[in-house]
């Protein structure tokens, strides 16, 4: 029986297909001409209803660009991003033509799409109006999207939510300005504000990274709690696999691992953590501090530094650092291979009969990285 890949929901909330985002940059002092960086290079990913996907990768891997593209804040240069089957950027173009009086096809208006796809940032204060009290800040989305609500109802709703997220007494917090709130409190307000739009998906871009360790759990718990209340999906972006694990595990979601613009592995939390397939996923797991297994081993990578994203390695982009790399990895690009239910990995090693297995190992030069200083052994 041939089984086709099906996702949890028939129609994803957001669907990314072969997504590509290329940034053109002028070179250093204009000397080297124009450089381009493929911040996101050929990523496909579906996010369903009430879904949680945690994207993990090192800085510069393109996870934030991917996130912003998924919620329509960044236009892709290739591939497509769809909201409930509607191409987001076609919707924008169609609405533009409509506003000029031309007729277009029916579809979901761009403004509705933008409302349904919200973001909370690492630095919530920067997204708030410094001259607004918490109450003013939270009134805005309600006024816009629920204009029928009376002033008293709005107030009651806001107070109720503040209390719900633990900002008590709510009357006191409602009157405060952003700078009078702690980082954790600001993030709560940002979360409430985006939820008041009744979004289908919230992009949480390093939303807890700036918080103290003990506060992170609190905010993640709140996110999970509010997800149930509001039926929202999260695209949670973090450089920290442990936090991604916590949120995605509690929500029964997936973890996606990005490296140099590519999604190298994506799958259910348990499989990613206990049965990782991609050597890069394994390296990230090694790097994640764990109180249960302590050992200062050498890193499972051949080079400590990430290559220049504007000039990514040929073939598999991880091959220059990969401890398992063979010559074929430098010349051929792995596809995303299905390795389990909703679990894909982009590594030849998951393919039993791949020519990788007969390819010679890559010989490194000098002591260019960890694990390479063999002189004392």
């Amino acid at each position, binding site marked *: 029986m041939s089984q086709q890949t099906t996702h949890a929901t028939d129609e994803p909330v957001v669907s990314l297909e072969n997504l590509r985002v290329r940034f053109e940059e002028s070179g250093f002092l204009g000397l080297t001409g124009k450089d381009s960086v493929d911040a996101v290079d050929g990523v496909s990913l579906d996010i369903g209803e009430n879904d949680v996907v945690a994207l993990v990768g*090192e*800085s510069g891997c393109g996870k934030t660009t991917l996130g912003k593209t998924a919620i329509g804040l960044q236009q892709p240069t290739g591939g497509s991003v769809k909201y409930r089957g509607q191409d987001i950027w076609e919707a924008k173009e169609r609405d533009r033509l409509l506003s000029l009086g031309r007729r277009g096809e029916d579809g979901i208006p761009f403004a509705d799409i933008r409302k349904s796809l919200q973001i909370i940032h690492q630095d919530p204060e920067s997204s708030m109006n410094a001259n607004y009290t918490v109450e003013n800040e939270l009134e805005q989305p309600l006024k816009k999207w629920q204009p029928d609500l009376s002033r008293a109802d709005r107030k009651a709703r806001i107070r109720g939510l503040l209390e719900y997220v633990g900002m008590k007494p709510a009357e006191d917090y409602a009157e405060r300005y952003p700078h009078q709130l*702690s980082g954790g409190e600001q993030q709560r307000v940002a979360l409430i504000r985006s939820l008041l739009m009744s979004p289908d998906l919230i992009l949480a871009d390093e939303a807890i990274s700036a918080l*103290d*360790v*003990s506060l*992170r*759990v*609190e905010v993640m*718990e709140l996110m999970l709690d509010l997800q149930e209340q509001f039926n929202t999906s999260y695209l949670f972006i973090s*450089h*920290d*696999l*442990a*936090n991604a*694990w*916590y949120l995605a*595990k*509690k929500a029964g979601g997936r973890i996606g691992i990005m490296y140099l613009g590519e999604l190298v592995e994506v799958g259910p939390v348990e499989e990613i*953590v206990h049965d990782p397939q991609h050597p890069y996923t394994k*390296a*990230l*797991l*090694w*790097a*994640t*501090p*764990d*109180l*249960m*297994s*302590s*050992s*200062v*081993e*050498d*890193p499972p*990578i051949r*080079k*400590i*530094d*990430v290559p220049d994203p504007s000039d990514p390695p040929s073939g598999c982009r991880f091959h220059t650092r990969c401890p398992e790399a063979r010559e074929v990895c430098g010349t051929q690009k792995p596809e995303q291979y299905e390795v389990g239910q909703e679990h894909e990995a982009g590594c030849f090693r998951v393919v039993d009969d791949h020519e990788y297995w007969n390819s010679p190992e890559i010989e490194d030069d000098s*002591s*260019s*990285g*960890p694990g390479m200083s063999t002189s004392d052994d």
Partner: protein
Amino acid sequence: MSQQRQQHGAVGIDDPILEIRDASVTFDMARGTSRVLDNLSLDIARDEIIGVVGESGSGKTMLASAILDSVDDPGYLEGEVTYHPEDGDPVDVLSLSEEELKGIRWEEIAFVVQGAQSGFNPTMKIKDHFVETLRTHDADLQEGMERAHQLLEDVYLEPTQILESYGHQLSGGQKQRALIALGLVLEPEVVVMDEPTSALDLLMQRSIVSLLADLKEEYALTIVFITHDLALVTDLADRIAVMYGFEVVEVGPSETILADSGHPYTRKLLNTVPTISADEADMDIIEGSAPDPVNVPSGCTFHPRCPLADDQCVNIDPPLGKVGDDHHAACHYPEEAREALPLSYTEGD
């Protein structure tokens, strides 16, 4: 029970390289005196790696400044810091003149800051920073630069290329490793590192941590690793000192702290660490917030957030008492804490 030293909260360490006694730092502020280091005593053993762990506002960075007598004005530092060179007489650090301090800083006790924060002068090549450091301390330039090359290689940097670069041309991880190499160029005995990896990606963080373990062996260093990240440092450190409310509340060997900590704050902090190898995603929350330095709680500073607190905790500040081998905690109820606050990651089979 440890004897006379207990009142200082000092842990009897053989052959300490640094002794910090009753160190306090105060700032006069409009709303009162702000006490950001509170009678802190700590011994640092020769050739050990000690992890100083605390959340923001615990006073851990102030401890680093106190060790080097570099508390910024108008901060006022009291207490004693004694440096014991391998050979020679003990040095009373806080009584040294600026000129004498120069002979200690960098040459004996180096300080490595977060690369993202300050690090390198943007108008100077990395090489110039090494040269300047060597010159300022009247070190032999040629020998020094040879050491610089070796150190840069030790931290997996390509020496000739890095030395000709400017700070902005390096990635965060490269910058941090170059700063570590710079910190070691005058062959210090002690290296104090304040959040040396926290701005970096996990893979780079952990790579640097395993690098430090190698460097420590190679150069016989004593490392004081200050961080908010308990999980990161437990692998690396021989001992851990946990700071809360501007003082050390627990200190002991890393394995002991992990397996059998006696302070409720440490136990709760350990339970806030996500443990991805665990079956269940259970993480604790520490209710409440860190103490206000102008209005430090009476008695035990942790009592407003402690589930075990009673009248004694509200009224009497517990000294660092012995709770195990080389293991001290400032709590009236260490046994009860162990009972009442199980460590989530050691539970189950």
